[in-house]
């Protein structure tokens, strides 16, 4: 019980859509009448729909978050995963007390510092040093605390030369580094980080990730992290939750959370184009079982399968046209590519992927028609998803280990003699 750092209990948040100013007064009066005079429930709390931004709703009230319940342990790094509009930022805003929940309660142990947007409250006219004091005090540090940390902050941000220069002369990267550095040295028990790492350069990202790991592992502090970058999510976080349309749909280990999220969001396992004004384009792309020729998206690891491309061309295919594709892993890191020079009058191409090539998991295919280094003839808007099912390979013995993606047959020689 004592090792819980934050506890979310039934957190919901309702927003009003549209122009806020219209009808506010009448709604306010109505609400006041219903709740204070008639002692009824707030009439506007009952209505409100799930927050699906693409469909037009009936009500102008919407639930950005609905009944969120979870706990974060001390020293844990929790990743919050979700599409745009899933409620991630709202959750962080409530946590950093920028806005209040409509219902529910959050209990936390210790100081919460948020990096919702670093460099907030930086005054462009003031120098770096002045801004460190300013920003530090905004985040609740006392003057003494800042005094003792000043050198460390400046050093970590790498802005020692500029510390007495107005912040308006800083590059955007420097501003972010300074902001992150201040917050990271706050020593809060709970640190809320939202997509800050996207801004700095590679070197700083590494440093920042290292600092966050120090914070969680070394000092036993808790970090809540929001990012769309599944790679950094996977390296940083221990556990993860998935938000979907304001509801908590998954909570568990980060690896499982990422996999669940990705396989939920990538449903397209084929591609079809009915019309295009391009001279040469992909008409149809799909996967099929190479034995019974049935289209599918899941293939056993020990059976070969086909990638089928149907092309359409209005004129002759230009010389040197190449069909290339790249296979990506679930976190969209490229694994390998293959290329084929097209001859004229080709319509259908079938690629045989051998058995025992890919390990179990989700993959993406990204095909392209191009004349290498000259021009692209056709691309498809979204990568196509397929899965390899591990139905009992030797790798499946190590369920939770990250073993890579490619199966390689190496020659293992056993010998009793000494090697020379």
């Amino acid at each position, binding site marked *: 019980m004592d090792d819980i750092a934050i506890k979310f209990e039934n957190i919901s948040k309702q927003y*009003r859509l549209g122009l806020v100013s219209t009808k*506010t007064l009448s709604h306010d009066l109505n609400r006041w009448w219903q709740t204070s005079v008639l002692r009824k429930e707030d009439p506007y709390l009952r209505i409100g729909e799930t927050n699906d931004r693409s469909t037009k709703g009936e009500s102008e009230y919407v639930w950005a978050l609905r009944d969120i319940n979870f706990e974060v342990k001390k020293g844990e790094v929790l990743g919050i995963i979700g599409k745009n509009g899933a409620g991630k930022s709202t959750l962080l805003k409530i946590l950093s007390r920028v*806005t*209040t929940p409509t219902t529910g309660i959050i*209990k936390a142990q210790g*100081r919460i510092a948020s990096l919702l947007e670093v460099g*907030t409250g930086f005054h462009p*006219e003031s120098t770096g040093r002045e801004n460190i004091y300013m920003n530090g*005090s*905004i985040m609740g540090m006392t003057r003494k605390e800042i005094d003792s940390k000043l050198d460390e902050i400046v050093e970590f941000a790498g802005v020692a030369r500029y510390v007495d220069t107005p912040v308006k002369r800083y590059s955007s990267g420097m501003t972010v580094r300074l902001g992150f550095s201040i917050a990271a040295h706050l020593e809060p028990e709970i640190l809320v980080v939202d997509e800050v790492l996207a801004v700095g350069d590679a070197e700083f990202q590494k440093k920042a990730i290292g600092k966050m790991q120090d914070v969680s592992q070394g000092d036993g502090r808790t970090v809540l992290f929001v990012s769309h970058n599944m790679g950094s999510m996977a390296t940083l976080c221990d556990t993860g939750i998935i938000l979907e349309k304001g509801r908590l749909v998954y909570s568990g280990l980060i690896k499982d959370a990422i996999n669940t999220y990705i396989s939920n969001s990538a449903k397209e396992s084929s591609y079809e184009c009915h019309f295009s004004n391009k001279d040469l384009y992909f008409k149809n792309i799909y996967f099929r079982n190479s034995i019974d020729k049935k289209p599918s998206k899941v293939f056993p690891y020990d059976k070969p399968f086909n990638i089928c491309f149907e092309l359409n061309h209005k004129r002759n295919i230009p010389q040197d046209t190449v069909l290339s594709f790249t296979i990506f892993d679930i976190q969209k890191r490229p694994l390998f590519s293959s290329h084929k020079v097209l001859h004229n009058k080709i319509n259908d191409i079938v690629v045989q992927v051998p058995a025992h090539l890919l390990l179990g998991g989700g993959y993406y295919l990204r095909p392209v028609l191009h004349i290498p280094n000259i021009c692209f003839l056709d691309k498809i808007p979204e990568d196509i998803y397929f899965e390899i099912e591990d139905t009992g390979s030797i790798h499946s013995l190590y369920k939770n280990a990250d073993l890579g993606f490619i199966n390689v047959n190496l020659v293992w020689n056993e010998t009793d003699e000494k090697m020379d």
Partner: protein
Amino acid sequence: MAESGKWTTIIKPTTGLFDIDFKELIRYKDLWRMFVKRDIVTQYKQTILGPLWFFVNPALTTIMYMVVFGGIAGISTDGLPQPLFYLSGICLWNYFSTCLLKTSSTFKDNENIFGKVYFPRLIMPVSTVSSSLYTFGIQLILFVAVYIYYIVAGVPVAPNIYLLLLPVLVIMLAGLSLGFGIIISSLTTKYRDLSILFTFIVQLWMYATPIIYPLSVMSPKKQWIAALNPVTSIVETFRYATLGTGTFDWWQLGYSFIFMCVVLGVGIVVFNKVQRSFMDTV
């Protein structure tokens, strides 16, 4: 179980009206100091005259009033030299109206920073009122300079014992402007119309206060109307203490003081309620 002691931060929906965390305010006193310092320093950064600009405003206003109200309209100044009379009113009124206008746009001006980090929002208007004291102090120096000039020149003005009330007067002005300002700023988060109306009201308010005229020009029967204005007695007391003219009445001053306490109290309660959710409506 020591459940309640374990959690140090609790975030919940709307709190009661009087659930105001004053302890937290005190914990953030360093932030208040930073804001005050920032306000003062940034005001004249990249200007050549720097703080001297604070003299220019009241000096020019005084000259303008001398021409328009003293010269053209011929309004009495209770037999006092015009610069002295106008300047005394302008100093006080400038402080009051600056605080009022600045605090009344607290939420609108700080939307950006309020939207990203949490700190007790009340720090913002309180530091505005504090940093404006600096400007007020400088303008008061101008008044004192003019005052000494006239004393040396032989005009029969002299400060009296009531000058000891000056700190109280300043606190009352600060409290009134803070109270009104935060009420307006809380209301404008939802109803923007008010902020437009408010600038106009502040202008009118000045004419309802004995700044450009002494209270004595009003017929005694009508003076009670002017006395309803809580700023009236503050200005009159200041003039009485420094220049020896005008009216002084403990009851009047007491009324203003109670008025201030009520406005400030209501203001803090309203502001506290609005600050928690204003990001959704602003």
